[in-house]
């Protein structure tokens, strides 16, 4: 994907998230994620991504702490 296309996708995602609102944002992200996953060639493309993101998230302090 070119930088320009990435920009387009990024902005579209942000705008859609804003439209559906915070309460439905998880659902929207889950749907987009699953749809993109289904377009990958195999689990090898996907599992490392999930693992890295998980590790990054676990480094974040929990909110309200």
């Amino acid at each position, binding site marked *: 994907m070119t930088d320009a296309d990435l920009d387009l996708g990024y902005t579209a995602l942000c705008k859609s998230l804003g439209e559906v609102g915070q309460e439905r944002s998880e*659902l929207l992200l889950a749907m987009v994620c699953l749809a993109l996953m289904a377009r990958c060639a195999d689990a090898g493309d996907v599992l490392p991504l999930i693992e890295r993101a998980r590790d990054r998230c676990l480094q974040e302090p929990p909110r309200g702490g």
Partner: protein
Amino acid sequence: MPPIEPLPDSVPVLIAGGGPVGLALAALLARHGVASLVAEADAGYCTGSRAICISRRSQEILSWAGAGAALAAKALPWTGGRSYWRDAEVLRFQMPNEPSQRFAPMVNIQQYHVEEFIHQALQASPQLAQVAWSARVAQVAPQADGVDVAIETASGRSTVRAQYLVACDGGRSTVREQLGLQLEGTQYDGRYVIVDIVQKTRRPVERLAWFDPPSNPGSTILMHRQPDDVWRIDYQLRDDEDGVEALKPENILPRVQSHLRMIGEHEPWEMLWASMYNAKCLTLPAYRHGRVLFAGDAAHLVPIFGVRGLNSGLDDAANLAWKLARVLAQDAGDALLDTYSAERVQAARENIAYGAKSTEFMAPPDFAFRLMREATLRLALDEPAVRSLINPRQSAPVAYTGSALNGPQVGEWVDAAAAPGQPAPEALLAGPQGAFHLTQCFGTAFTCLVFGDGPLPQAVAALANHGIGVLDIPPEADALGQARERYGLPDAAATGLVLVRPDGYVMGRWRGLDARPLLDCLRGRGWKL
């Protein structure tokens, strides 16, 4: 049912529990000429539909038990299903099925019918298979060379000495409790009410599932047709609902009525039976404890959604019966019974994993699985690629990968479907009396399948002297080419021998027509030939 009085002093095999697994084991043992006594605490067959989906493999096993014709006449075959989210269809699936198959991939029938059919088949071997109703196992005392089992009947307590005791006494097994054994694993919190109603319908027989239907918002509903105009309806309770209240008719009827109205079923109906369950993924780590063996729910509990509960219990019985028969006949050492435990524990773990996958969708265990299910259901409206996540993942017989009983595979074979440890594939063959299915030949003895190129070699025919069934499959008998294809012969002229166990699993396969490796294979596994 009339009681057996008095109980015998001793018996080769005592089977605790006369549900479908215990009764099937008695029937299979009788087929091998082994006498057994079934002790069932209840006075008759179970109430309620309970385990209703009978897989293709189970239909084979029930045929060996003598219940095949009755089952085929009564049960309702089905091949697929549909799932709905709210009011939209999100999945349609078909199980592998084609006209030359012997059985439908799945048939629906109430458990009490299955018990009745097997019990009736047992009447053909009254000297071998006895069933004592209203006979409760009270105490189990393993001894060096048998098991002393105290059984309570209306006339008091008596002790039966069994060479082997097989616990088929269900999820709350007394035998398990007596031996101080615990099931290990996990349970899911999500609870389902299951209901039988009688109502006439014109709907086809298929598995139907609704997620968040307008009739019952937030719930999940499953429906299966059964014989006698019975519908089985399963619906999920909310986490905050009281279990006792939920089973009261005044709380069940409106929910069922609401759904029937939504799907356009307006015929008069009444409720027959209701119960509740939550999905469990539990197993004993070993199914053999000296002279005591465990089968069915006494050994393992799997989630209902994978449809592998009763089906895996029947597979336990099929795996155990021929091994027990061999050991009792002293044709093999009792280490053969350890292979029952190893193979069936492995199978249970695989069935549990499948069941867990189904349960994660049907009763999501936490917020994460709930979120992703909601995403999947909505996405499924537009994305065919994600619909497989909604598929309930049907029952399939497990392969005994790595089993100590597996023999070798020698020479070139081009399909792994019939490798050692795999269930022997089905094939439609042509015989002198017409068409027949390969699996009709299994169930009692070992079978040697012969893929030859001319007259049967004498040494191969002589396998029959060792009690091994010999089935010659010349090209003209393999009319559709299914046997050669599915057993992995490289071409029509290729020769080979496949040794199939009494329970319909491949033990070994050898290219060429030399009988000696088959005999070596069996001798190497403790057979006295």
